[in-house]
């Protein structure tokens, strides 16, 4: 049973909506800059921040300014609304699967900060929205009344895995339509966390560059609507692409580092190709994970070199536009991959100057149109060795 993509929704540092994001990608305009809305950092930090406050987003979504809604949920609702369009997400065979790592942490960490300086018992309500499931429920209830509502949290591959799970549910005949992807807001917790690992660049990140020095975090949400033929005959939605292949594998090398040859990445990519009945030569463009950390980019490039050998494969990382959006990255990058497919274009990497040590072919550095693109691969690799590869194909 084929799985089709019939809706796209995205929010990131590039703006709200597919059009705003696409325009920025076409024009090589980055969304990364010094933090403005996120407060309380000890030094100015390069982040991919959406320039809308929580109050702004609540207003846009029709909530009261006093409603205690975590930023991750707000980002998620904006993107989910766009992806659904006129489709109503209800019925026993409908679902919503969201990937996230941050959940309600923005409200929780504000509470922790105040709890240590000044305990205020009324504010304790803000920790009720901490857990990931609650944030997913917010978005699900906003979208309608889907039957299957679930959250996947596997670090940076969270929303890619949500997409994978949704596809499996459709293929197994358990669901007919499912909104999948994920959301993550910026938080001091994650910024401090990546700084403590000493993989946060004090400058705008440089994925796949020899002089790369770490990642910049970003925030956002990306959702795609998956449907089978039965559902499409009712919704009459247009088809953007087919989700033709998917795979999840584990690197099993280290808690946070990847194996030198990206074993998990390689297994996931091969698995996705297998699932799609495609060969490496059938892939026209790869939206790589490319976080700009020394370790990830090196392992990932080695894995690409092993799989694609001498093939002239176009690849880039869009994290130089959005920052690393953690749990949302798989969803946001799925949308970008489909834009590439639909518009026959490839997006350039930003801030790239020098080939890495491996001397594998260089990433795409200028925006290209009229490119023959039949199949796009989108990769997401997270802590805990979690490696996921998705393939979107032209219909």
């Amino acid at each position, binding site marked *: 049973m084929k799985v089709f993509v019939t809706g796209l929704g995205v929010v990131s540092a590039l703006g709200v909506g597919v059009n705003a994001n696409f325009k920025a990608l076409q024009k090589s305009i980055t969304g990364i800059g010094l933090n403005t809305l996120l407060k309380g950092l000890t030094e100015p930090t390069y982040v991919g921040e959406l320039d809308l406050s929580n109050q702004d987003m609540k207003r846009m979504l029709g909530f009261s300014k006093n409603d205690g809604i975590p930023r991750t949920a707000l980002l998620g609702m904006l993107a989910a609304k766009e992806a659904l369009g006129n489709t109503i997400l209800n019925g026993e065979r409908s679902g919503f699967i969201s990937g996230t790592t941050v959940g309600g942490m923005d409200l929780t960490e504000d509470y922790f900060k105040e709890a240590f300086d000044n305990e205020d018992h009324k504010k304790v309500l803000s920790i009720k929205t901490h857990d990931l499931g609650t944030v997913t429920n917010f978005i699900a209830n906003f979208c309608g009344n889907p039957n299957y509502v679930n959250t996947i949290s596997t670090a940076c591959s969270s929303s890619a895995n949500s997409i994978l799970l949704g596809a499996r549910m459709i293929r197994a005949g358990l669901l007919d339509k499912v909104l999948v992807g994920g959301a993550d807001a910026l938080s001091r917790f994650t910024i401090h966390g990546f700084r*403590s*690992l*000493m993989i946060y660049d004090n400058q705008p990140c440089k994925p796949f560059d020899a002089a790369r020095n770490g990642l910049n975090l970003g925030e956002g949400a990306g959702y795609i609507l998956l449907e089978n033929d039965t559902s499409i005959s009712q919704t009459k939605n247009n088809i953007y692409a087919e989700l033709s292949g998917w795979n999840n594998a584990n690197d099993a090398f*280290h*808690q*946070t*580092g990847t194996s030198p040859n990206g074993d998990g990445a390689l297994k996931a990519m091969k698995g996705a190709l297998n699932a799609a009945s495609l060969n490496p030569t059938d892939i026209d463009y790869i939206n790589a994970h490319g976080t700009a950390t020394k370790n990830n980019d090196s392992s990932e490039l080695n894995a690409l070199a092993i799989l694609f050998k001498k093939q002239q494969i176009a690849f880039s990382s869009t994290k130089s536009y959005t920052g690393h959006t953690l749990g949302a990255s798989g969803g946001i990058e799925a949308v970008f991959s489909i834009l590439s497919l639909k518009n026959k274009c490839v997006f350039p990497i930003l801030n790239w100057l020098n080939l890495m040590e491996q001397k594998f072919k260089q990433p795409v550095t200028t925006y290209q149109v009229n490119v023959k693109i039949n199949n796009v691969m989108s990769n997401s690799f997270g802590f805990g060795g979690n490696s996921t590869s998705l393939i979107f194909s032209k219909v």
Partner: protein
Amino acid sequence: MDLKEELKQHLIEQLNLEEVDAADIENDAALFGDGLGLDSIDALELIVLLDTHYNIKINNPEQGKEIFQSVNSMAEFISQNRD
């Protein structure tokens, strides 16, 4: 207390080495790889240790490779760089 003995206590505490006694750690034994078996996360914790207890800040994790070879090399670095 002797700097090296103090350092071993800090090591055990910072790295959560509950099963290890200070007496078990030889001054010149390799801390990483085959010696004590520490890894890259421990290297980051040792950077925190240098900051917390000796006010020495290391900004590049790559510097750690030489400094953290053994208790001896750590003690020498601390003596030369502490406030």
